[in-house]
């Protein structure tokens, strides 16, 4: 997933980075095809070049040697709401068939079965980033037909489409999973399978969503990670294997 997420980034783009897999993907992209990626962290570090894998989004290694430090008011008002962020990463929790994300509660809001951390910056990233990449493993639990709570708006839903809501960003345009990639259909914004990793069974992938997952007319088979990408991940970027297992990439 890290390799695939990295490949979704173009050189020179301005990326709003969270911790964990997205951070790893960004650093892999910087080390390979996108050396001029500008990494902006929610915490205010701009143009960070961390010399260790940051464990927290506000790690001191993100500041040392960075290009600038912004107050959080500036991060949210001038960078994110200001339309300066090209790519935002979101992930985990629940994602529904239109890419709406729940990171608030499982169950009802007043009496939740599980209390999740809440929005953080996820709601505004989903609204303002020019495009959003979601990274999450494909399973019926993570991809229910409807989420229990919409923390971050996707392509469409009970409040209307992004167009009807005049949301400035394009929303989730790619969902990178462990089986392949989902993307919203142009017609109605419903996520459909557009690409799979080599060796992944299309039918099995489609059975992993909580709704009848459509398949795009020309399903792409993605090229495998190169040995260089794997070497960078395992031996340089995540030597402690904090985010990737020995086998996963």
């Amino acid at each position: 997933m890290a390799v695939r997420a990295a490949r979704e980034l173009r050189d020179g783009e301005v990326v709003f980075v969270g911790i964990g897999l997205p951070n790893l993907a960004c650093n892999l992209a910087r080390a390979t095809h996108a050396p001029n990626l500008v990494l902006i962290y929610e915490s205010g570090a701009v143009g960070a070049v961390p010399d260790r894998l940051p464990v927290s989004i506000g790690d001191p290694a993100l500041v040392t040697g960075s290009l600038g430090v912004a107050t959080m008011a500036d991060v949210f008002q001038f960078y994110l709401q200001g339309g300066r962020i090209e790519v935002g990463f979101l992930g985990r929790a629940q994602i529904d068939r239109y890419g709406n994300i729940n990171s608030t509660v499982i169950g009802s809001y007043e009496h939740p079965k599980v209390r999740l951390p809440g929005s953080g910056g996820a709601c505004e990233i989903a609204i303002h980033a020019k495009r959003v990449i979601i990274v999450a493993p494909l399973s019926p639990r993570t991809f229910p037909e409807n989420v229990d709570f919409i923390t971050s708006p996707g392509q469409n839903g009970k409040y209307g489409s992004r167009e009807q809501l005049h949301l400035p960003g394009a929303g989730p345009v790619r969902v990178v999973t462990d089986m392949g990639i989902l993307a919203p259909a142009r017609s109605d914004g419903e996520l459909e399978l557009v690409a799979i990793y080599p060796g992944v069974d299309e039918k099995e992938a489609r059975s992993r969503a909580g709704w009848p997952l459509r398949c795009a007319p020309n399903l792409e088979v993605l090229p495998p990670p190169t040995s260089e990408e794997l070497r960078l991940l395992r031996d340089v970027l995540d030597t402690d294997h904090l985010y990737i297992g020995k086998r996963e990439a």
Partner: protein
Amino acid sequence: MTSAASKVTTMREAIADLVHDGDSLVIEGFTHLICFAAAHEIIRQRRRDLTLCRLTPDLIYDQMIAAGCASKLVFSWAGNPGVGSLHALRRAVEKGQPAPLALEEYSHFGLVARLSAGAARLPFWLLRDYDGSDLPAANPLIRSVDCPYTGTKLATVPALNPDVTIVHAQRADASGNTQIWGLYGVQKEAAFAAKRVIVVVEEIVGEGVIRGDPNRTVIPSIVVDAVVCEPWGAHPSYAQGYYDRDNRFYVEWEDISRDEASLERWLKDFVYGVDGRAGYMQLLGAQRQDRLRAKPLISSGVNYGF
């Protein structure tokens, strides 16, 4: 050079004088400069019924909630970053232990905006946010206004003016002119928004140090009520240039806090059992301090001449 009145006091006196039962309290700092030393003193002085406000409640509010200080939490992301849940917070919400806890929830931008409005003495702040989200349905304080130019609907959040804000920083002079480098978080907005402000620093410096680099000043003395010198006061959070984040402690907290009894034991040893930050650091041990102490990487100066 004027030598303004000193506001230097001890942590014990600052908390006794300025933090009262029932207060709304902000201890800010986004990952960086989170003042655990003040939280521990509040726990020791057994403050009750506090409304705790913070973007990320983090371990600091988990500890205060476990100790029974809080009756309400205003927040935008409640977790142990990179590790998991805040277990004391969950027990309070799910089981009412040790006391029930009301929640008021925003996104990060929403809470930043609330503090900005408070600092600017506006009753609310504008943002383009929340369209298509369930957050306004969950929080009736998220409202909207119509733009008098375009007719567009914009989201609003009400001002947050806490009774007390506590800010940790690298250094201040005795009257409270406070300098921060590294991540700023919302320390400035939180200080300007508050009725009373306590600044806790790694070092109290002469006014000349502040005047030698005025562009580093983030909080002016005119909003500060008390200045406390408390080295290592942000541990397990960090102070850029002084000590690193104790990531290991954040991981350990998962085990300490998952069980009520072990959390109680930890509070007994590390909070109630010491009389201040010096005692806490002694208990933590010299080895840990050595591991966390910052290496020198000094920036170059700039010319303030004319």
